């Protein structure tokens, strides 16, 4: 199994956390060769989810710095004269990890023993970074556009609880109504409050249609004042204010009127998209997402290797030329790394400390008939802190055995132990007679570095953050791509065919892909185009029709080709990456027709259904889910490149294919 790593790749990605995984998949899809490494034996790095048995091993995975002898040894073998060896860091992104099984008097056997006996330890999926997805947010969009959505399933966060402190200083957890109907049924709000809330929602709906400048003007002087003041001005009472800010406005902690309105609109825009709640949670935990992006990268040729020591980088002038992993040298043109790998001598520009506690319980904090996925914003109980929330997910989300729950507390620190998210969670447990049997606490460091001096071709992926959503991660990824790689383009004399351009476009892509999904009409037409050109499929399928050994007539391949139902589906798989084929010099682009005719299958026959996809599509037999793959698969051709660049690329690819044709003729003659 100890196969050697490749000697040369376009991009080395260090760390399999979510941002690195997204970047890896974007690179792989753009046709770059990618080697994705992780020191851990598992996927996800600091964004991972663990089973109960795995989580206890996380702590032990320490990496010792290289000794002077090791550095000398590596330098001797791998580093050339004008190059410099830079040791990679192992930053403590997650630190102060403490885990305990909490004994309970009532249990005859400890819960640990019980769970182990029943083989339930593996049923836990404990997130390091629990987040939610906003139904119409950019993460969902990215998942759909990249088709990573195939690999994951989600559940609605179907309950938001709003905590209020009662007069006898108990914490009351009130369910938050999301829809109009729920608002009217709610027993928490008075009739006046309901009316005020409806008025606010109506205002939001109107406000959200305005362009942002006009929206700002509508808010007037209040725009940059606290959201609460603005709401007060609208005649919203204090209880309802807190309610709106902490539930509808949950996406923006400590909002101004402007940011609060934007957050409220985003919330309401997402309501009803997949269900009554605007938020989704990935089945098996958030760590799934990075794995799903890794799978996409792998499907497009990225090579995966976990559990290898990644030791150092080799630098020449201001560029990284290679990575040293497992004492092998891998030459590369770009390096993408998670914050964990940033060399120890690079200064931290900014570090936000995130307080995290996870409890395992066997009772929900608010029991109702059906199990819920629950989100609780604790901001009103800790007004000093920017972030404080609970997420309770259990069997329904596939993150715990039946009847069990994980309660994730996330908070930024604000001084004072009695005000920590941990102590508030414990208060809620006590008041609701929930007795946790396991607890893990740690601090997560959201570190930002000044990476300019590190190397011109290094991208440090965004760190874990305390936001409830993924929006900032995606936004940062889009920026990272564009800025750093365009600098690269100017500095090194790269011609346009160079794949860096592709990477650049992949960045653009993340944003532009929405077009495809929202305008299936365009794609329907593309489908026709693709199907008319079956040569593409044949190339992609590695089937060498020129191979004289294969007599297709005898082997009767007609079964598949004549059964368009099967074929259409199979085409889509191969068509997903036409770029790869075009660059493959061994492919005969211009000459598939001859073979096709010889194969005894007349694809030019007008009677074949391929030219008439409209019928097929509407036909009940067609799997539209698979058709969608085709639609999506066409985007690299069309929307992938900016207009100007596209024409150049096309010309080039034509040139290339002509060259290929010549080559093919030559080889034919030689033979």
């Amino acid at each position, binding site marked *: *199994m100890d*196969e050697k790593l490749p000697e040369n790749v376009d991009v080395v990605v260090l760390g399999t956390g979510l941002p690195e995984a997204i970047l890896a998949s974007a690179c792989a899809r753009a046709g770059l060769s990618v080697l994705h490494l992780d020191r851990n034996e598992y*996927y996800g790095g600091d964004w991972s989810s663990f*089973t109960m048995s795995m989580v206890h091993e996380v702590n032990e995975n320490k990496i010792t710095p290289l000794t002077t002898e090791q550095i000398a040894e590596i330098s001797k073998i791998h580093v050339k004269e004008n190059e410099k060896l830079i040791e990679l860091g192992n930053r403590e992104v997650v630190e102060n990890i403490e885990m305990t099984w909490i004994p309970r008097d009532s249990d005859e056997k400890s819960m640990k023993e019980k769970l182990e006996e029943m083989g339930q330890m593996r049923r836990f999926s404990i997130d390091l970074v629990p987040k939610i997805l906003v139904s119409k947010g950019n993460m*969902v969009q990215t998942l*759909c556009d990249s*088709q990573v*959505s*195939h*690999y994951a*399933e*989600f559940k*609605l966060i179907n309950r938001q609880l709003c905590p209020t402190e009662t007069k006898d200083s108990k914490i009351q957890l009130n369910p938050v109504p999301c829809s109009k109907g729920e608002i009217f049924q709610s027993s928490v709000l008075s009739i006046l409050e309901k009316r005020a809330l409806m008025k606010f929602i109506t205002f939001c709906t109107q406000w959200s249609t305005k362009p942002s400048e006009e929206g700002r003007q509508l808010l007037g002087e209040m725009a940059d004042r606290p959201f609460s003041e603005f709401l007060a001005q609208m005649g919203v009472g204090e209880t309802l204010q807190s309610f709106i800010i902490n539930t509808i406005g949950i996406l923006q902690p400590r909002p101004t009127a402007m940011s609060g309105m934007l957050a409220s609109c985003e919330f309401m825009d997402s309501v009803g*998209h*997949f*269900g009554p709640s605007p938020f989704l949670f990935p*089945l*098996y935990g958030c760590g799934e997402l990075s*794995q*799903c992006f890794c*799978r996409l990268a*792998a*499907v*497009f*040729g990225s*090579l*995966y*290797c*976990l559990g290898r020591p990644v030791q150092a980088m080799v630098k020449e002038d201001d560029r990284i030329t290679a990575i040293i992993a497992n004492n092998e040298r891998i030459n590369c043109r770009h390096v993408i790394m998670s914050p964990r790998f940033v060399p120890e001598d690079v200064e931290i520009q900014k570090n936000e400390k995130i307080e995290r506690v996870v409890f395992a319980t066997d009772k929900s904090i608010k029991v109702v008939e*059906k199990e819920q996925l629950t989100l609780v914003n604790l901001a009103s109980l800790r007004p000093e802190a920017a972030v404080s929330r609970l997420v309770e997910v259990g069997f329904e989300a596939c993150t715990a055995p039946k009847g069990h729950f994980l309660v994730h507390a996330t908070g930024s620190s604000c001084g004072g132990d009695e005000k920590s998210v941990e102590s508030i969670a414990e208060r809620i447990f006590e008041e609701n007679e929930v007795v946790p049997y396991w607890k893990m606490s740690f601090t997560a460091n959201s570190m930002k570095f000044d990476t300019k001096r590190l190397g011109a071709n290094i991208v440090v992926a965004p760190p874990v953050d305390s936001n409830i959503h993924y929006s900032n991660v995606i936004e940062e990824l889009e920026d990272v791509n564009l800025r750093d790689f365009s600098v690269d383009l100017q500095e090194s004399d790269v011609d346009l065919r160079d794949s860096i351009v592709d990477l650049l476009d992949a960045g653009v892509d993340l944003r532009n892909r929405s077009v495809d*999904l929202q305008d*299936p*009409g365009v794609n*329907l037409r593309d489908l026709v185009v693709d199907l008319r050109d079956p040569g593409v499929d044949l190339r992609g*399928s*590695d*089937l*060498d029709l020129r*191979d004289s050994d294969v007599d297709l007539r005898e*082997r*009767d*391949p007609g*079964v*598949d080709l004549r059964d368009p139902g*099967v074929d259409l*589906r*199979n085409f889509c*798989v*191969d068509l*997903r*990456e036409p770029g*790869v084929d075009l660059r493959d010099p061994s492919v005969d682009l211009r000459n598939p027709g001859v073979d096709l005719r010889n194969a005894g299958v007349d694809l030019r026959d007008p009677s074949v259904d391929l030219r008439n996809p409209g019928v097929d599509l509407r036909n*009940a*037999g*067609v*799997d*539209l*889910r698979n*058709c*969608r793959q085709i639609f999506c698969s066409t985007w690299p051709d069309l929307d992938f490149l900016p207009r100007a660049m596209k024409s150049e690329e096309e010309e080039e690819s034509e040139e290339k294919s002509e060259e290929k044709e010549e080559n093919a003729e030559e080889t034919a003659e030689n033979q």
Partner: protein
Amino acid sequence: MEDYKYLFKVVLVGNAGVGKTCLVRKFTQGIFPPGQSATIGVDFMIKTVKVGNDKIKLQIWDTAGQERFRSITQSYYRSAHAIVLVYDVSCQPSFDCLPEWLGEIESYANRRVLKILVGNKVDKGDEREVPERIGSDFSDVNHFDYFLETSALDATNVDQLFEQVATRLTNDMKITDERVHQYRADATNTSSSGGPIKLIDRAQTQLNSCCSRQ
């Protein structure tokens, strides 16, 4: 909307080079891809088979090369209905790795997943290193549901393999309704009934409405 009765997710695992991709290709496309080219851009393939009078869709997933360094994502195993563990009868090491693969399957896959052991490349008669008995014994000891020797090259048992998968899964599905997921054809109702949400649903709905308008 769609006229198949069930959709089953079948995943293939096993060492690199044992012929997983060839098995899938042979079955779904009827071809045996020559050469060693890695599987690029292929996520899964679909083929419809008939079990009795029912149309059954098999969605067959390949490893995307992640087995090369034993780095298969856990999510690959999730929600699989059947796992086909493949070794090469002419390559003892690929057989010796089976316990490791079983370990992964047990850690990540559904407990009730249909497990099938396949010894591939029986066409290499002279080079055989793993006798059929040994494979069959291993299958019994480790509670596989089915064992079969195949050849993707000369098509031996390839159709039988996937027909068995389809038949067994269909029978299981008919007997018990406990494996409740959105495998039924009426997938569109899932979001309202609280089942898991596929983000695809949204785009699909759009497509449906677009088509019906035409």
